[in-house]
């Protein structure tokens, strides 16, 4: 009886009403805020991105009036990516390239990188990868040395396909690719020797691979696309000084057609699981769960029935839901107006002071 009630306890206790994310900045203009609320990147007006910190507010990026911005971080907290989306409300194109820029954490000095989508920072934020949808090339660039590499995907790749890319070391890139029959594979590519090998190939078509990295491991999720009934799986590869990625373990496996959209942290993987699926009319009810990597226990964290996405912002894990954001991990209320003491070595202060 005690065992049963403990199980129910773990299933039920987190499936409660989640707190809304509250900040002192209007949510619709916010593009990034650090976990402690010290730095916020805000779209002050259309086409203008500003940084607001304790001691300054500066509009540092001005693009055409119809531009929008995406600001992405990584677990290393040294740099941020800014993707400028041109003509956001007037050019409806899911495959258009964005202008990619990089800025140091909490700073405003920009560095132009290139054009593409799906930009990610790797390896202590020294490397950046992104995908050019027109040329169908994966671009890998060292931010400090400017060294550039390129991996070309087949010309027949769908324009809406965006590969998942992770860097394991400065010469090893792992990315996903798909063939004409819809079979997806994970490919390891050596930037120096320019040789590749297939780490994993799916046994079923109609699925996609997701990659995420945290301390010491890389998570690989295989999930079906919408309207397709397939099994779901999450695997784990331990990352160490050796770049041999041959051995991976299955941390989660299910016959349900889960949505995925994984977020990895050091101890857990958060993803969206399907709880009910009426296959005839493709009706699903989906919620966020947390997979504990040590125990492989799955915990239900939400009760919304139509969760589609999860996102991590400086370690705070959020559910974007119908124009609002609900917090799963991290503080939910950063409306505190008290000024924080400057971080002397890193924070830029206004010249007047």
């Amino acid at each position, binding site marked *: 009886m005690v065992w049963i009630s403990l199980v129910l306890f773990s299933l039920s206790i987190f499936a409660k009403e989640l707190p809304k994310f509250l900040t002192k900045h209007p*949510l*619709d203009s*916010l*593009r*990034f*805020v650090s976990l402690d609320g010290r730095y916020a990147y805000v779209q002050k007006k*259309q086409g203008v991105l500003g940084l607001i910190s304790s001691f300054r507010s500066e509009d540092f990026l001005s693009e055409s009036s*119809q531009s929008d911005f*995406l*600001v*992405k971080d990584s677990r290393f907290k040294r740099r941020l990516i800014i*993707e400028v989306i041109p*003509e*956001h*409300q*007037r*050019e*409806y*194109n*899911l495959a*258009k390239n964005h202008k990619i820029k990089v800025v140091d954490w909490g700073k405003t000095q920009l560095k132009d990188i290139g054009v593409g989508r*799906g930009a990610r920072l790797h390896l202590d934020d020294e490397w950046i990868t992104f995908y050019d949808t*027109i040329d169908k090339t994966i671009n890998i660039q060292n931010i400090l040395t400017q060294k550039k590499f390129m991996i070309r995907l087949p*010309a*027949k790749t*769908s*324009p*809406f396909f965006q590969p998942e890319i992770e860097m394991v070391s400065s010469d090893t890139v792992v990315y996903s690719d798909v063939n*004409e*029959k*819809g079979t997806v594979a994970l490919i390891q590519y050596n930037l120096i020797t320019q040789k590749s090998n297939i780490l994993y190939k799916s046994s079923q*078509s*109609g699925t*996609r691979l*997701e990659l995420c990295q945290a301390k010491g491991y890389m998570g690989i999720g295989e*999930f079906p*696309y*919408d*309207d*397709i*009934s397939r099994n779901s799986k999450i695997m784990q590869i331990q990352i160490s000084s050796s770049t041999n990625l041959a051995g991976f373990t299955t941390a989660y496996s299910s016959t349900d057609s889960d*949505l995925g*959209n994984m977020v990895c942290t050091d101890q857990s993987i958060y993803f*969206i699981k399907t709880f009910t699926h*009426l*296959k*005839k*009319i*493709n*009706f699903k009810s989906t919620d966020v769960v947390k997979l504990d990597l040590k125990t492989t226990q799955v915990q239900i964290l939400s009760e919304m*029935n*139509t969760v*589609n*996405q999860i*996102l991590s*912002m400086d370690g705070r894990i959020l559910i*974007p839901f*119908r*124009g609002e*954001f609900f917090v799963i991990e991290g503080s939910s209320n950063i409306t505190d107006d008290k000024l924080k003491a400057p971080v002397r070595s890193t924070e830029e202060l206004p010249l007047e002071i």
Partner: protein
Amino acid sequence: MKTLPLFSLNRLYNYSGAALLGLCLCFSLFAQTTPLPTPPSVDYPGMIESLEKLIQLDNKKFQKKNDELIKNGTTINDFSTVSSLEIDPDYLNSIILHSKPGYVKLASTNKCRFYDTLINDLLRNADGDIRNIFITFLNKNKERGSASVVKKEFINKVVSLECPETPKLIDEFQVKNLDKTIKATNFDSPAGKDQCHNVYLDWLNNSRTPYYCKVHEFIKEARSGSGDAKDLVQRRAIAAILEKKLDVQQRDYLDNLCENLGDEEKFCEDFLNVSFWSKIAAGRENKIYAEDICRRVMGSPTLNAIQLKQCIARIKKENDLCMYPAGRSQGLVPAPQCDTLATALNFSSLRADYRDCPSTSDQQAITNMARLLLNISKEAIQPYNGSCSTISTGVTYQFNKRFNNDENWNLEACYMDPLAEKELCYKTFIGSYGTVPESYNMVVAKILQNTRGADANVKCEMIDSEDYNPLLLQYKSGCYIIYERTKCFMSQCKHKILYNDRSIDFIKLKNRITLDYFPSNIVNERYSQQYMLVNDYRQKGRSLNNMSSIITFFKKSKKGIIHGVGCAEDLLPSFFKVEAFNQCSPLPFIIDGMIRENDKTVFVTRSAVDSLQAPRLISWGSVYSAVKSYQRQHPLRLWTLYGLD
């Protein structure tokens, strides 16, 4: 004559129910005549009695009355001398007991429908075909009497006076006029349960239904060889003529209608539950829905009828065959599995008889708008040159030009005019569509005429670089625009121009096509596509922001569709992942059908990146999330989900 009493819609047209009603009629106020005595050899029927006994009783009553009226020779010579003419209630009972329930239901809608059904031999009595009609009337002395009237006389003396539309209908269904009548009739298949209910009721109340069912019964009888053997050859010849006037889809439609007039569920089942693939195999649906799939399955760029049928047989069994169709520039893949796709197509009503290659579209607002416009106008697709997304661009450009919004069409082909010593630019779109002068082909030709002295008749042709062979003689003269298929879209196109085998590089494409789908600011509201659609094009539109309004919309509007813009990350979350805070990629979409199972509702949806032939089933929760999230991002906080009637 009094109208027939209103019957309830359920169960009544089972034979036993009808017979009970018939018996009730005997004892109701409608029974104006003195009831005939029950034949002594039959037990008096109670409320629960075998059908055979009821029919037996009715037959005996009918024969007795028939003999009596014929023996007495009671006829009416002058109909003007009688009043309160009614069909004999016992005669009505006989009709109810011996006719098909569907035709009884049709006959009961109103008096004239009853007469029409009678005229077209759809009703039967105890004798089989109706030749005489028993009536009751009040004579000059206000006494009620009965008479038997020959059917032809009844039609001439009673029907044509009481129902003036009937002679017109008879004329419409003469063989010489049948083509015109069929052309004017709507045989559209409903795309949802509510739509089907409306369509079913429309047919029940349609004055032409008895005449169409007569055509159906005539063809059926001739085919089966039943009826009088003496004139079978003639009837078969006429049936062959009638069959030719209807296409396969129309013949199947009438089969379903006339056989299931009494049962709405069965009528609708044919549209909603029969596999869509079976409908394609039977020729009832356009084979375009299966062509790209079957080219992949059969491994052949062309398909004959046998290959198509073989492919469809496989599609019905192997669910994954539909996910990755062949064809250049198809939409978002994977498409739904075959069973889900068939369900979606069964409930879909959007026009999809052409391909519009969404993966070569870099302006999905144009793709979506063109789908709406072609669905509304039903105009034929004009000849085009270039990628098939040119169809969308051409149609949308013409729409914008018609309402004076071409000035906001930014894409231009420019060159430096040596005489004017300045840059001249012409509005254009990539590819050519019909004879639209702003087609890139025509604009390039015009520039060549102005700068290279090209002939006034010169025509430029767009050629896919994979099809271009520079060694062929045909490319040595004339004007060709060689484009790279994977890098040629609506707004930008990697291409080279050859004129008389010489490269032309002074023509530049400038700007990109940018449009407001819904207004993004108040000042330019008038130039948004939605504004022009509703205000200038006069398409009735209304905002739909909850499930009840959408359900009501589909119930009331037979061919209505819903369009909107939502965040792709909510609409298609497995294809588009959120990577940053407040990420929302606007994606136009169209909803053209609804499926409700228990309390769950999903919509037949095509986003602008989906293939026209591969709609998806998306739940209301996801649609609502997508539109709500987009509302947050929209500069005017608009709710961007509209129904168009």
